[in-house]
């Protein structure tokens, strides 16, 4: 009997009614350290399954572009040990979405390698399913030609060239892919790029719980205790009970209040009332948030409308060049006051100086932290800060060129003469040397689009193995 069939037997009552389903959200970002006390408390509640989210598009294009994880191997491994041991001790499914930060093939492979190694060293035995999320380029190109791909927000329309150039191109899988893995007999599912919600809604959907509340619960619990006050990363228990669900943080100091949970429904959403999934749309306009006691909140009213046309969100990143940066401070009032003129003057000088020696094209960006390094303010700064931090970034065709450019920039910025200069020893304070840092390859997102598809199954293939 598969793990899913065992669950079905456990929650199905003689009258055909479904018992409350307990879902433990163990981590909203696996690999940054799972707080152990709350996880242990969650295991004591005997959840029917454990879910973890391991990635997001939020950390930027580098991870998807490069195939690297944002989390360290040691911490990732430690977190995987915790959730694998917990799920195996309870003999319940473990579902993990967006393996290795970005969920493309190299991220999935690195995560699976850790899972296999942990199973071996910890003596764990289970059926492991992995689900790939890398898109076949020919199908995406065909969709572009057929006009079935549209931009998601402020990004250019997708071209076939973008599809070819992306180093990795993934789509977010939905509940359908997880259900196929579970139907195939998986105890543990490690998925590539996935909707955060699918990790937590796939089993409720497979068991026949109403999809509106199931998806709404999934949307809230995927970040664990961030929906509580004070918010945190502790494990969170969601209990799905007919048309409503209960949110209960496994850390007793983190309270799920109607206000904190409702506010979380807004979080990182462009539309606070609608969440679009591959298989349909969750609508929370009629949602109600009620306190059960000071620690727990009951939520009801989420509505699910199945899609008439399946869609998937595509994500891709392309190499831009090699990046090097210069890091330096400044505490001279005259230099700070003149910095907005000094930097373009130095840039002009540097471009002339390096032109005969470097072959690659390069771009330069400078930031003055303390003035407008973070925000493109609508108005000028009111009073000059005592100190500023200067960051000069070069992206070039080669790392050598990027480093050459910022190195020359360093020296000419250090000794740049300007009207009213008094600190003729140098305009910069270096916190360490070398103050030029080579950062590796720079990427940008060139794909963030929605693609109409007629068949989800062939886009997200499942592979099963026994450990």
């Amino acid at each position, binding site marked *: 009997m598969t793990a899913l069939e065992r669950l079905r037997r456990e929650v199905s009552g003689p009258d055909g009614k479904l018992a409350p389903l307990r879902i433990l959200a163990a981590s909203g970002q696996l690999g940054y350290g799972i707080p152990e006390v709350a996880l242990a408390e969650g295991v004591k509640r005997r959840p029917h399954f454990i879910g973890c989210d391991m990635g997001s598009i*939020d950390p930027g294009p580098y991870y998807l572009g490069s195939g690297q994880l944002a989390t360290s191997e040691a911490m990732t491994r430690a977190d995987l040990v915790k959730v694998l041991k917990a799920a195996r001790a309870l003999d319940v499914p473990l579902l993990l979405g967006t393996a290795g930060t970005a969920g493309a093939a190299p991220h999935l492979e690195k995560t699976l390698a850790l899972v296999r190694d942990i199973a071996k060293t910890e003596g764990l035995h289970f059926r492991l399913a992995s689900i790939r999320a890398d898109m076949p380029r020919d199908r995406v190109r065909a969709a572009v030609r057929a006009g079935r791909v549209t*931009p998601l927000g402020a990004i250019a329309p997708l071209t076939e060239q973008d599809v070819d150039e992306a180093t990795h191109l993934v789509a977010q899988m939905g509940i359908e892919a997880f259900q196929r893995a579970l139907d195939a007999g998986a105890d543990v599912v490690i998925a590539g790029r996935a909707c955060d919600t699918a990790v937590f809604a796939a089993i409720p959907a497979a068991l026949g719980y109403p999809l509106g509340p199931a998806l709404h619960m999934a949307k809230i619990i995927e970040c664990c205790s961030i929906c509580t006050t004070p918010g945190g990363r502790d494990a969170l228990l969601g209990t799905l009970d007919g048309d409503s669900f209960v949110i209960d943080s496994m850390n007793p100091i983190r309270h799920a209040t109607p206000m904190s949970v*409702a506010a979380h429904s*807004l979080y990182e959403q*462009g539309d606070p009332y609608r969440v679009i999934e591959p298989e349909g749309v969750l609508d929370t306009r009629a949602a109600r948030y009620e306190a059960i006691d000071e620690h727990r909140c009951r939520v009801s009213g989420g509505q699910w409308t199945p899609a008439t046309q399946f869609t998937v969100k595509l994500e891709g990143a392309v190499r831009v060049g090699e990046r090097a940066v210069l890091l330096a401070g400044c505490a001279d009032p005259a230099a700070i006051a003149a910095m907005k003129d000094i930097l373009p003057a130095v840039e002009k000088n540097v471009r002339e100086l390096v032109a005969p020696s470097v072959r690659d094209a390069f771009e330069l960006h400078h930031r003055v932290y303390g003035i407008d390094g*973070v925000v493109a303010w*609508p108005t000028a700064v009111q009073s000059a800060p005592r100190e500023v931090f200067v960051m000069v970034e070069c992206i070039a065709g080669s790392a050598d060129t990027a480093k050459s450019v910022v190195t020359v920039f360093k020296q000419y910025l250090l000794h740049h003469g300007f009207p009213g200069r008094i600190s003729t020893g140098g305009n910069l304070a270096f916190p360490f040397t070398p103050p030029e840092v080579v950062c590796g390859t720079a990427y*940008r997102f060139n794909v963030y689009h929605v693609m109409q598809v007629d068949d989800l199954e062939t886009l997200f293939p499942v592979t099963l193995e026994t450990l």
Partner: protein
Amino acid sequence: MNLLDIARVVRSKNAGPTTLTIDLLFNDRAGYDRALNATALTPTAVAALYRLRADQVEVIPYPPALAIKIVMDRALVAGDPGDRDVYGAQQHGPLLGVTL
């Protein structure tokens, strides 16, 4: 009255790499209603603070959390060369000075 006199949370974050969203969570119904009717929080006024066109900004009331959500196009896709804030978590500053 300043926004911070009546709001307990003013947070910004990406909603995907092409969209910035700013949530204003108010202390009470009176503050929420006041903000909802304020000219300083219309799409036109917010667009001016972020150097955008009014049609790139949407202001959405969210009564269950006594909140207003502001959704706007990002000038650059998150992480593009020249971006200042990959997560978009520090873009609330221009709103902190508004009077309602």
